[in-house]
């Protein structure tokens, strides 16, 4: 449905997207996961016809996004990262306006938004600017859906939304996916990755890994250790200089470290003792999605640092 091949995008000297290829299948819920500045929004804005790629080609449902942007616009629903509806128009007026500019009507596609709109209905005469954050997101999703698009492009729809609304929002996305809708969604929250069919982990304008959340976890080929006790800052500092270390970071009050498989808990204990750190316990840990992401981020960043070192 969505095909990026060798697409790159620069903003003056800043890299938005490094030569990147990926695909999203029809009916798939694809998540773009990564920190701020990773290139998630660039991917979405390129697909939404708001940006032009420097190189490479992007097709949507077989249509060239650059040359035939008009037909692409008709069949996508885009929800920008920041609230972009008319705050001085009411819920109903916003919905009617966006339906009408697509030569459609609210009645015609009401079935698509019924679930969401039911929750908005009590506020339909309220100005959009006076809605709560969660309600705004629901309205924005309704407006993106009202012309019955083939695919939804949602740029960080859950950022800054309360936990309950986030769960509700993802439930809505699952239901939409069940109707056959293709959804490309980005999020900075790692725990939301498991809710996607497939995810692309992004950093520095490129994909570090693409696959199902399970595949991402399975692809983890390091040994993960959880180090508890001791002064975590000192532990962290010491482990960073440990020669067998692959990645080390603090996660949920523990210092997590990944190493190659040939390292044992005793090796690590010994190293810590040599650094005069007492009272720390080293335990094998089962990696979850977050660990995979942190590991990728660290190795990705360190590779980059190595390169700069060589140059510098």
């Amino acid at each position, binding site marked *: 449905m969505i095909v990026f091949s060798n697409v790159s995008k620069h903003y003056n000297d800043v890299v938005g997207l490094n030569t990147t290829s990926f695909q999203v299948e029809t009916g798939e819920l694809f998540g773009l996961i990564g920190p701020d500045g990773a290139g998630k929004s660039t991917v979405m804005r390129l697909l939404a*016809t*708001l940006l032009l790629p420097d190189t490479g080609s992007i097709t949507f449902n077989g249509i060239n996004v650059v040359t035939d942007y008009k037909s692409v616009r008709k069949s*996508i629903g885009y929800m920008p990262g*920041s609230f972009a509806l*008319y*705050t001085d128009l009411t819920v109903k007026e916003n919905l009617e306006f*966006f339906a*009408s*500019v*697509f030569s459609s009507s609210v009645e015609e596609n009401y079935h698509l938004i019924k679930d969401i709109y039911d929750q908005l209905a009590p506020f339909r005469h309220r100005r959009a600017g006076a809605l709560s954050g969660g309600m705004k997101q629901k309205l924005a999703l309704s407006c993106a859906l009202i012309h019955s698009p083939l695919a939804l492009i949602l740029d960080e729809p859950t950022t800054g939304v309360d936990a309950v609304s986030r769960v509700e929002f993802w439930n809505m996305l699952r239901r939409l996916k069940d109707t056959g809708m293709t959804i490309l969604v980005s999020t900075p929250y790692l725990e939301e990755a498991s809710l996607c069919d497939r995810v692309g982990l992004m950093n520095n304008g490129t994909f570090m890994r693409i696959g199902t959340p399970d595949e991402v976890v399975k692809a983890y080929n390091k040994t993960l250790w959880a180090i508890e006790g001791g002064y975590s800052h000192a532990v962290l500092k010491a482990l960073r200089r440990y020669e067998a270390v692959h990645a080390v970071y603090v996660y949920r009050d523990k210092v997590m470290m990944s190493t190659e498989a040939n390292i044992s808990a005793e090796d690590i204990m010994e190293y810590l003792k040599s650094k005069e750190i007492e009272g720390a316990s080293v335990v094998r840990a089962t990696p979850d999605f977050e660990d995979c992401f942190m590991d990728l981020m660290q190795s990705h960043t360190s590779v980059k640092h190595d390169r700069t070192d060589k140059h510098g």
Partner: protein
Amino acid sequence: MKALPHLLKKEFRQIRRNKAMLPIIFIMPFVQLLILVNAADFEIRNIRIAFEDADRSKASQQLIARFTSSPYFNVLGMVNSATEGLSLLDRDKVTVVLRIPNGFERQLQSNHHTTLALDINGIDGQAAGLSRAYVGSIVREFQASITSRGQVGRGQASSGIDERYWYNSDLEYRNMMLPGLLVLLVTMVGLFLTSMNIVREIEMGTIEQINVTPIRKYEFIIGKLLPFWIIGLLELALGLTIGVLVYSIPIVGSVWLLFLFAMLYLPVIMGMGLIVSSITKTQQQAMFVSWFLMVIFLLMSGLFTPIENMPQWAQSITLFNPTAYFIKVVRLVLLKGSSLMDVAHEFGVITLFSIVMTTIAVLAYRKRVA
């Protein structure tokens, strides 16, 4: 074009709800026309004058009496020397000192040339010029009266000018000012409201959502400009109504011709508003830039100072000032009753401006931020 009616509906709805725009649209014409027309009155009354009468004759007394009875002058008294007169000027007690030389009456009677001296506060050049002209006319009248009474005799015919002012026979200042203020009104709506309204979509981020809809570039622009084009014409109608009802300004020519010109003038100004909106990112920036443009357009338009008074290079610049053409046409049509043929040149120029400006504006406005 299918989306246009929906865009217009949305636009009018937003204008109606905008707490800043609506009062501007409806209160501005009243404020400008009811207050400014009176405030920006260049006619001067009660010019404070003092006399140095070195002659102390019957003739000099008669001359001073003429000033005393004139509504334009407020005679503050007599001084004994030129120095004393200047010190009154210094202390801003008077703005004009008229000095009558010794032998004034004698010279007049013997029909010799006589010179009066006039000291004027020249800080406000316009006021000074008018004071000079008023003094001059009183002196001329005085001279004429003496001649007719035969006090100056001996057969020399004195020549005078019989003046008659056309198109604004009483030189009523309002008749000249009000048409100009109508232009100011239309220009403000066209420039400020247009640029601010478009930038608002960028500032609020709504342009993102609009840009992914099938709304075409030209549809969006028309949808944004048409409401203010209509409002601009309404303002003109409102302003003319106030002018007729409150000030009874003459409408000698065709009102329709005036509206036709405004219809062509507004796209020029709104095109400029569109350009302003494409180089700014917030409503505040748009307002600053619009204000800057507006001041230049107005000061170089002939609204306050005649274009003929400007240096040649400045006059050349006014050839590119659409506001100058509109002010000229409004005055010509309202006061002189000029027909389309009389102002054909101005119509031609504004049509050209209109085409050029809209083209540039549309090109400058990029729907796809690339």
